[in-house]
């Protein structure tokens, strides 16, 4: 899907936990998520912590959209 969107001219970032899979399918901008069943919020943490993590990682994804890249890039996350 990512490739089709990118081919059509949309700047796209894939947020995924399985980085090897995202790389294999040919995503160019990749931001890691924390797991498969809950990509952006660990249910074992408080709602506030989940929000904080989600806000931060989506922020990284938004910033990745404004970043010029030369090759497939996995953007680093701190939390």
């Amino acid at each position, binding site marked *: *899907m990512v490739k089709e*969107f*990118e081919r*059509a001219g949309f700047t796209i970032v894939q947020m995924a936990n399985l980085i090897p899979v995202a790389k294999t399918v040919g995503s160019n901008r990749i931001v890691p998520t924390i797991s498969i*069943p809950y990509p952006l919020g660990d249910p074992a943490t408080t709602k506030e912590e989940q929000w904080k993590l989600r*806000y931060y990682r989506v922020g990284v994804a938004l910033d990745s959209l404004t970043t010029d890249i030369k090759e497939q890039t996995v953007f680093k996350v701190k939390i």
Partner: protein
Amino acid sequence: MKKAIMYVNQFFGQIGGEDKADFKPVIKCGLVGPAVELQKHLDAEVTHTIICGDNFIGSNTEKAMEIIMGFLKDKEFDIFFAGPAFQAGRYGVACGQVCKAVKEKFNIPVITSMHIENPGVEMFKKDMYIFKGGHSAAKMKDDVKAMAAFGNKLLKGEENLGADEEGYYARGIRHQVWRKDGVMAADRAVEMTIKKLNGKPYETELPMPKMDRVPIAPAIKDLSKAVIALVTSGGIVPIDNPDRIQSASATRWGRYNIEGIDDLKEGVYKTIHAGYDPAAADADPDVVVPLDVMRAYEKEGKIGRLHNYFYSTVGTGTTQGEAARMANEMIPYLKEDEVDAIILTST
């Protein structure tokens, strides 16, 4: 009796050499050049031969296709052949183009033949049967015979034994088969291990395919003016799954209006994705489709605005062909709203 038509270039069509490469397409009743050989082996009547100059088709592709499709539209035929093109690059590409167009327009089997170094092989092997042909016209008889033998199989509906056994280039189409010798996977694995450990040759049953890449889309210059859309393969849908998206091997997708919605609430949305534990996503669908934080970024002015719909399907077991089709079905909606960028979340 079934009928066949064959395409050849100006040289094999006996029009002339390089000086005649601008020759415009013609269709002749009966057999010219390689078609004579084809008729010897084919259990179908070769009714016509189409001849076209390699340069003409190369530089006027659209025009040439129009003429050739025009020739064919009132003809009855069950199978189409082109070449063999050996190592002739322009001829190979022409065979590929004509065969592809015939297959798309008439939905009948098309067969051609090229040497492995012919650029037409890489360009068209996924679209048609290209037989592994010889380097030069010295192999004409063998190559035509191989094409005809396989054509006979297809016409009779006999079992295709696969690319290697039949002698055509692999098309990237993999299906399961039962091994004739019945040797089970455990024995194959242990025997392969012993060979690998002893430096003996062995054959993997899954050669690594080459990766298809797309050019990187340019960065967004001013995010505060950009329209962003959310897409997910994590199967988040309204609770009653109105589009009946399948929980695995999905062929359907949905777009759901989020105007005025700041948060995907439990009990209103859920996941129908069967490939992961749904508990967390059902309890808070924002962990898969981060609508709540996107609204926050929208209010802050970090992004221009969020597109009024999110798009959802299920990634597990969904084929690339289906995924590509679904993406292409979503694209017009995204373009209509002048979406600049997409965040795709996957599970």
